[in-house]
């Protein structure tokens, strides 16, 4: 069974393992699975301006657009997932076998010893499906880092991972869970039928081990992103409504809500094209450009490491195959990270970057304005 996505007898490709409203672009052999094809689609749109992100950043005072001190070391441990959400920017799924090896995990931990980053943000795919996930978490905790697990919730229901809530709680790991909406309709529309019910059950299990009750060692963060071609809601006023709704309908509690816009790349790009929303959505992102959201976007205080150890300005650039480069034009790798010049570089941008500066701003930590 080696090579097959089977975990303790559960086939990750099955609907029981997690909802699957679509299949990966790669498994369908689509041109759009290629980063260059995605960038070309965005560049070829005729918009109201030339939509040159660097020019917008320069107008807002960033000439050139450069990083701030490093706070967050984000590690994408692979593309394997038990779900195939319609909007996934990673094109993740059970067929994606790219997964970080133990050697690269160890390189990441060694790099952490050499950085001042206070937070390690672990993402995927479903990062918990990487066989070295716990080695990575334990290593980060031992180094005194604040650890974030970006969790799709449904993965917690897999029999093999049933002890995971307690494992994470014991180590004070913050769990950031994807839940597009506090009610079923929009959640299932984006992530597949049955997602909402499974997500509520997973939230109950997290609550049962102390998450979501105001304990700083058991922080439960929910992450909403729109189920369609519109911008994310205001996270502060929405949080209160979500807390009331989830408690009233399900007796579930959480600590905070963060709201993110969808990036017009990968499977969300496919959906935008198929539904005739691409032009309108890209124009909307451009019209909603907020200079006040620019200083706080994640590429300025985060580096993103891929499953094979390469360094990117953010997880979106990683998926678009736009590596971070130093002043000498060399692509950065975690094995030689950080160099003295790591934060002395220019952030690589393209039109998708308008997704992070639209409205209240949007990054892995939520609104930025």
């Amino acid at each position, binding site marked *: 069974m080696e090579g097959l996505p089977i975990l303790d007898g559960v086939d990750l490709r099955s609907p029981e393992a997690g909802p699957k409203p679509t299949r990966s672009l790669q498994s369908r052999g689509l041109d759009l699975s290629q980063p260059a094809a995605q960038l070309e689609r965005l560049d070829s749109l005729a918009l109201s301006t030339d939509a040159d992100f660097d020019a917008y950043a320069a107008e807002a005072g960033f000439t050139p657009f450069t990083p701030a001190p490093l706070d967050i070391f984000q590690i994408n441990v692979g593309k394997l997932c038990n779900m195939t959400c319609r909007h996934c920017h990673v094109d993740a799924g059970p067929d994606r076998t790219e997964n970080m090896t133990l050697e690269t995990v160890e390189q990441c931990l060694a790099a952490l010893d050499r950085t001042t980053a206070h937070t390690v943000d672990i993402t995927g795919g479903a990062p918990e499906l990487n066989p070295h996930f716990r080695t990575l978490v334990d290593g980060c905790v031992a180094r005194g880092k604040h650890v974030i697990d970006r969790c799709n919730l449904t993965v917690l229901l897999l029999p093999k991972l049933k002890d995971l809530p307690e494992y994470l709680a014991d180590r004070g790991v913050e769990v950031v869970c994807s839940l597009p909406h506090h009610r079923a309709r*929009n959640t299932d529309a984006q992530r597949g039928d049955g997602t909402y019910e499974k997500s509520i059950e997973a939230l109950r299990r997290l609550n049962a081990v102390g998450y979501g009750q105001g304990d700083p060692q058991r922080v439960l963060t929910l992450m909403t992103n729109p189920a369609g071609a519109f911008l994310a809601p205001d996270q502060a006023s*929405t949080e209160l409504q979500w807390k009331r709704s989830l408690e009233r309908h399900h007796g579930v509690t959480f600590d905070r809500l963060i709201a993110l816009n969808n990036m017009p790349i990968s499977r969300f790009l496919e959906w935008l094209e198929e539904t005739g929303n691409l032009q309108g959505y890209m124009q909307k992102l451009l019209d909603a450009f907020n200079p006040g959201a620019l200083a706080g976007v994640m590429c300025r205080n985060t580096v993103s490491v891929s499953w094979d150890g390469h360094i990117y300005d953010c997880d979106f650039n990683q998926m678009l195959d736009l590596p971070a480069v130093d002043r000498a034009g060399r692509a950065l790798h975690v094995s030689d990270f950080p160099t003295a010049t790591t934060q002395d570089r220019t952030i690589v941008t393209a039109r998708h970057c308008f997704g992070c500066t639209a409205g209240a701003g949007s990054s892995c930590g939520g609104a930025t304005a």
Partner: protein
Amino acid sequence: MSDYYKADHLARFGEISQGNPDLAKKFFAWYGATFEDGALTKREKSLIALAVSHAVQCPYCIDAYTTGCLEAGSDLEEMTEAVHVAAAIKGGAALVHGLQMLEKAEERGM
């Protein structure tokens, strides 16, 4: 109908300032302030606006507040309930006038 209602008029709404910039400026400032979070949230106000849009049967407003409600975090269930509230008031408003009919009928009839 197409001569009277054009979808691009919504995006071009600001052009109304051409005839009187001062009044337009006051209107848009007041309009913007009305929808800020206050005792009611932006989301609640957007749902009210969506319902009123249907009651006044304004296609521009329906377009704007369908997106507005979604971006404020509402879903189709909530938005449909808001439209039913508008429809119920419109229906009720028609039907309650039946009491005028009833009184007239009683006055005129035997």
